[in-house]
Every structure is written in structure tokens, then in C-alpha cells.
């Protein structure tokens, strides 16, 4: 046991800094190996985390031990905390901005399909004034109709698709003109 403690102490000064993005929020972490686990600091909070098998980590919170699953693939970290799934993006060095491509593009002045699918019905025309959360278009994906709402107040500047068109998640269906 004594040797275990030594192992931690040997790297006492080592710290690994990481950044994660959840939606539009940046989380900075500082991790250091300690004994048989890792101590992580986020703001003023400290977490003591012990690896417990492939993709599994044991954490004690308020006196209760939890096993949390976490797998990192490409630039994403996938975490399961008692069934709550959290997907964090790990920003890469070369891409300056945080909003990466893929899975649910969110921009204030562009409206994307949530999934690749078909435009069933456009509910607005170019030039229309729209309000935040107003339904703009119905997209069918996986045999279900999904209503896509406006991300902000503004005016419809451009519509890039017509009813019946196939859409992917990279090209905006509707572009908005918004006041900053």
C-alpha cells in the first residue's frame, strides 16, 4: 500500500488541462493522477475518479459511490451517469470555433433539418417576420414528422428548399435575418 502512495506522489506536480464543450458552454478541467485514480478540478469543485474497467469509472458523490461510463471517440466524449447521457465535444487545436459540424447544427440565423430527411411542408415564405420558437418547416425523418422551430426572432431571408426536397443536416433549409 505504501508503494501505491509513492506512485501518486511521484507525479504530484503533473497536471493535464482539458476543455470540453456542452452545447455552447465551455468547461475547463484540470486533472492529476493520484494514487489509484485521478483527481479532477473544475472551478472550485474537486472529483476523485477511479478507473473501474474498460469505459467505467467510479466516483464518490456525497458519500454514495456511482459507476459512470465514459468512452471517448474522435473529438467526442460520451458519458452515461445513471442513464443520463451527456455528449461533450473536445475542441481541436486547429478549428478556432467551437460549433463543429454534424449532429444538430445550432445557429441563430440558420434553420437546419434535425436529421437527414424530406421537407414535407414549409410554413413560411421569404420575407415573413418570424418569432422565436415559431414553427417554420415540417421535416419527415424515420417516418415521423418533425416540426422545426425558429431559433430566434427575425425575418426569413432565404429558403433553400421546396416541399418534397431531400435535405441533409449541413445545408440550412431557411436562413434568417436577425437583429444582433
Amino acid at each position, binding site marked *: 500500500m505504501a*508503494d*501505491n502512495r509513492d506512485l501518486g506522489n*511521484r507525479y504530484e506536480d*503533473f497536471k*493535464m*488541462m*482539458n*476543455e*470540453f464543450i456542452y452545447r455552447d*458552454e465551455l*468547461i475547463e*478541467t484540470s*486533472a492529476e*493522477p493520484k494514487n489509484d485514480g485521478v483527481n*479532477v478540478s*473544475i472551478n472550485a*469543485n474537486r*472529483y476523485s*475518479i477511479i*478507473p473501474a*474497467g474498460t*469505459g467505467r*469509472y467510479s*466516483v464518490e*458523490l456525497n458519500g454514495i459511490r456511482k459507476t*459512470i*461510463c*465514459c*468512452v*471517448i*471517440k*474522435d*473529438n*467526442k*466524449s*460520451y*458519458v*452515461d*451517469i445513471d*442513464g*443520463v*447521457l*451527456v455528449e*461533450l*465535444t*473536445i*475542441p*481541436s*487545436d486547429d478549428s478556432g470555433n467551437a460549433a463543429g459540424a454534424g449532429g*444538430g447544427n445550432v445557429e441563430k440565423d440558420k434553420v437546419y433539418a*434535425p*436529421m*437527414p430527411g424530406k421537407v414535407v*411542408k414549409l410554413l413560411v415564405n421569404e420575407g415573413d417576420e418570424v418569432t422565436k420558437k415559431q414553427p417554420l418547416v415540417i421535416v*419527415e*425523418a*424515420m*417516418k*415521423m*414528422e418533425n416540426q422545426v422551430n425558429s431559433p430566434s426572432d427575425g425575418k426569413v431571408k432565404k429558403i433553400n428548399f421546396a416541399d418534397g426536397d431531400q435535405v441533409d443536416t449541413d445545408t440550412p433549409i431557411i436562413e434568417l435575418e436577425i437583429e444582433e
Partner: protein
Amino acid sequence: MTKKLFNRILVSNRGEIAVRIINACRLLGIPSLAIYSTADRGAVHAQSADKAVEIGPPPPRESYLNIDRIIEAALENRCDAIHPGYGFLAENPEFPEKCKKAGITFIGPSAESMRLMGNKVQSRIKMANAGVPLIPGMKKAGADIAEFEKAADKAGYPVLIKAAAGGGGKGMRIVKEKKGLKESVEAAKREAKNAFNDDTVYLEKYIEDPRHIEFQVLADTHGNVIHLFERECSIQRRHQKIIEETPSVALTPEIREKMGKAAVNVARAADYLNAGTVEFLLDKNGGFYFLEMNTRVQVEHPITEMTTGVDLVAEQIKIAAGEKISESAIIAKQTGHSIECRIYAEDAENGFLPSSGEIIYYKEPAGPGIRVDTGIVEGTIVGVEYDPILAKLIVYAPDRDLAISKMINALKDYKILGIKTSLKFLMDVLAHPEFKAGRTYTDFIDRNMGERIIDKKLIELAAAVSSAALISKPAISTAGGGVKRTSPSPWQTIGTWEIGMRISK
């Protein structure tokens, strides 16, 4: 040795139900043939059968719905029977017709009973004549909006608009007042047209505080028709069932007996053969109304299997081979309590949008009374081509409280990473006091489950664990994205390092 029922069965489906049917074939000693689209080359169902053939590209029309190609595959591989599963071709009467012409046994009902039950309008008329109670509403499909308005006024709002060729909630809309009627009829027609290529919709009175109760029936070629009790499937989202249980807390032995008799009458009136399900709405006062009959094996069939001990898919195969319903099924009793949760690839924290991607971590729960029916493994890519059902988790316990508790724990132990799933949402439904109290009406989700947001503390905890994962596994983390301001982990230089290993005594 008992006589061989079939030479080889073609399983005309994919995912968990294809795997379930293949397992039943194995149990009965019958070789099976799986079919798969090019998107499913590595899928579990394609690997599970004794033989598998590729039948076409990913779009269902060109693969899982391509009747001629499937029959050709059956003939080429000396299959003398086809099991359709649920969905896809399971309720398309053309399929049993073409099977018959090709000399292949269709494991299911006749094209005629399928056609009758597939038409919700005609089946209601037939069942009304057979003395089965119905919900007030339109006697036939509406031609123009005025007809719908008239019928809605007569039945009284709220009203329900349904696709005549419907199923699975597609083309269905509830309308609370006259104002929204026209829009909803149009939307229902569009959905029906897309899903079934038939935009016929009709209208009926919407029953408030209703429960969805269905009865499992079996009918053989020897004139035996039995029921295997009820399943309550009231917990639905967008009219899709997500949690089913049996027995239902709402049924007294008297109501159960009455409904069971009505279910058997429906099957007899439809000249039904093989396994089927008769769906009823149950109102607050124990009144029940025939909704429709599903002429296939149901997604939720396992809970009946758990509480009666009957293997429904094996019974289907035996009945199709001309055998009698098993004695064990005829004398089966309902014991204990069973619950099924359907696990979907969808984001409950983001409007239940379907989720797709690769499953990068997968661990199933296990233990006494826990069953998982699935067609996924670690590495499976969940695409957008097919229904987003990933798995069904089924538990069995002596009573309802224990079954709920067992299910919540099993859901917690079920780990699927890489895509979004409905696991947490299901846990929250089961843990809800209204669910525990048995107040399970079909509007449970709208009534009890509010907007879902993830607690900020959990996001921070997720980031903490992620940074521990990065430091423990630097080799993976550098792939693709890369990590900012990262020095090489000292653990890389330590050499082999094992958790819990004793370094010295």
C-alpha cells in the same frame, strides 16, 4: 424425434424481432434463412441465422418490402415457410397471397382476415355486427372537410383522426376543438399517404382517461381459439407504445373475462388463424371498445410469454405447420407481473429527435427475471433508414411493485454509448408516483412528463470523468480531435498498470 415442422424458414425482417424468430426456429430444430439489405450486412440478425442472403439496397421498398425478391430468395434456398415478424410486410395481404402461389407457408393469418382487419372502417362494421362494442364516430372514411366537421360535432370534441390503413401511430391526430380540425385532417392525410400510400382517414370520439388494453389470441386450423390474457399498453408517446405491462391494474377478474370473450369473438368473426392481438380502449367505468386487431406478432409479446410461459413465436410456427395449439398454452394461467420497455434511439432531452451513429459501448443488464430482446451489439451503426427501436427490456417479478423496481435497476444497468437513447426517460416514467399508483392513461406522458433538461451538476461531472478518461487513455483521445495543452501522460511511461493490483504486501 418429433416430426420436422418445416424444411427451412425465411425470416422476413430485421433487428430484434428477426433475432427473436431465428431463436424460435433454433429451439424447434428448424434451419432459418435471414434476409438483409446492404445497410445490414454486419447486422446481428444477418449473422444469427444459419444462412443469410442480401436482398437489396437500404431503402425498405427495395429490400425488406420487396415481396418478389423475398419469395425468390425463399425458393432459391428451399424455404417452405416465411415468418414476417412485425412491421414491413407483416400486415400486407399481398404477401401471404404471393407466398401461397409460390407454394410457401406464410406464418400468420390468411390474406382475407388481414385485408379485413387492415381496413379499420370495414373491420369496425363487421365487429359491430358480431356484437363487439365500438367507439362512436364516422361509419366510413370522410371525403371532404365538411363531413369531418359534421361527424366531429355529432361525436363531440375532442375527436381522434386515424388513418384507415393505419398502425403505429402514423397518420393519427387528436383534435381538441373545431379550430384545429382542418389542419389536423390534412396532416394526418399526408402522414398516411407517406406511410401507407393511402390517405384515407376517418374520425371518432376521443375517450378521455382511457387505457389501452389488448388481448393476445391464438387460433389453429383445428377450430381452437384461445386468449392468453391482456397487456396494458397505455404508456405511449406520439401514439407509439413505449412501456407495456401485464396484468393491468385496471382489470377485475369479471372485466378480464368479458374482454377475453370479446377478443375470442373478434378472432372467430374474422376467421382468424395464428397469433393476433385484439386492441380495446378501456374507459374509467370499465366500459371497453374494440379498436382494431393486429394480425401479427406484437412488439410487446414477451410480457405475455413471461406471465404465461407460452412461447408465442414457437406457437405461431406450429400452428402454421397445421398443428394444434399446445396443451400448455390452452391451460396457461396468468402468474406474476411483467413489464416491457422499448428502448429507442432518440434524444429525450431534445424533443425526442431520432438519434443515429455508432454504438461504441454496450452492456446489457442481467439477472433473474431479466430478458433483453435486441439486434444490436457494440459497433452496430444505427442508421436513419429504419425504425429507431434498439432493444426491448423485459422483466418478470412476483408482483407489480417488484417488477417496477427491477425494471428501474435493469434500465440503470443498461449502458449504450455513442447515440442518444430513451433509457433515462423510461426510468423517470417508471419512478413517477402516478405510474407506481397505476394511473396509467394513454395521455400519461403529456400529463406527467414535463420538459427535460440535464442538471448542470451532471454536465460538470461528465466533464470530470471525461478528463479522467483522457488521462487514462491518451492513445484514444488523440485520434481525430486532439487535445489542447496536453502533455504526455506519465502513465504512458509507467508501463503495464493494473487497477487494484497489489504492488507489495
